[in-house]
């Protein structure tokens, strides 16, 4: 049976993403010493065939930081930067974007934002979660998003993705923060919120 999520559950997940990305934005802001804005997050529950295009242009090259989350549930946090935004962020941190140091700076941003986001998520749901070390890759958006979603695709054809956009004010620089819980993970989050289906 294909899995669907009623609007009330998606609203709750969107609110979780909102609080999580708000906490992440605060962390990024204190790291950069600049205000950081967040968009209203999207809670995408789409057939896997549709989900890649919902996140952007499949063949656009992006830099990704992947942060696997373990603990009471399995999920993957994914930060995506357009190349020019990755360069701007590295510039704000005073490192060369085309170097190992640049990539590890982005990984560290991923680590800090991811930890802030899931810290907020843990507090709200009383789920114990911790991040594993981040990994980076620069590749086609489609290849990155599909490879992350494949991990949770065994038992469902519906992919769930919480997608937030963070924008650094005055620097023309933004990044996407996505959380892809496995299907068991979504059920666990919803049941902690008293919204199990």
């Amino acid at each position, binding site marked *: 049976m294909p899995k669907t999520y009623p609007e009330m559950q998606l609203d709750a997940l969107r609110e979780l993403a909102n609080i999580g990305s708000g906490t992440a934005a605060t962390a990024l802001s204190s790291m950069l010493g600049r205000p950081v804005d967040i968009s209203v997050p999207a809670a995408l529950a789409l057939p896997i065939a549709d989900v890649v295009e919902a996140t952007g242009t499949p063949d656009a090259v992006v830099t990704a930081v992947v942060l*696997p989350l373990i603990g009471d549930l399995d999920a993957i946090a994914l930060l995506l930067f357009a190349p020019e935004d990755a360069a701007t962020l590295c510039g704000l941190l005073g490192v060369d974007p085309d170097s190992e140091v640049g990539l590890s700076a982005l990984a560290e941003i991923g680590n800090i934002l991811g930890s802030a986001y899931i810290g907020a998520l843990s507090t709200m749901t009383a789920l114990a979660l911790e991040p594993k070390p981040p990994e980076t890759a620069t590749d086609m958006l489609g290849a990155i998003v599909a490879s992350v979603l494949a991990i949770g695709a065994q038992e469902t054809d519906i992919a769930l993705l919480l997608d937030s956009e963070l924008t650094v004010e005055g620097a023309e620089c933004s990044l996407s923060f996505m959380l892809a819980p496995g299907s068991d993970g979504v059920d666990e989050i919803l049941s902690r919120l008293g919204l199990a289906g």
Partner: protein
Amino acid sequence: MTETAETMVRMGELAVSKTPGHVLASIGLGSCIGLVLVDHARPRAGLAHIVLPSSVNGADAGAGKFADRAVPALLERMAALGAMRSSLHAVLVGGAQMFSLGSDSSLDIGRRNEHAAREALTAAGLAVRAAATGGSNGRTVRVYVDSGLVTVKEPGAPEVEIFSKPGANGRAR
């Protein structure tokens, strides 16, 4: 490349075509596998965008999602289009490991996908004529229905031909 009608074969989908000038494409294969079948005697081509190796616990899946089901499903669609099984060539693209995600090798979905696709093809009596698999880069695959040409493009690199149908003079390996 000239302007042509392109059909996008997205995660878990499969498509076949005998339309002259038509192109089948999967953009951004990471751990996924693009399984290509072309008929060397007539313009028939098929492409499945495989996501995972096997369909255990995945009853409601799209026809192309699992390697073990995608191979028979694609063969059936090709046969319905008039392709001859004995003249089919298989090509595999993708199966990269984009992220290691720790040391758990069960998470190397790319490698497992390739293995499962090769197994299913062998079981169906089909040989893999060309492959661009493994590594850590994403790939885009395009199949040109007229010519049976299969190309691969990695980010920042040009489109490269990895398979063309054997000409009148001989057989491709």
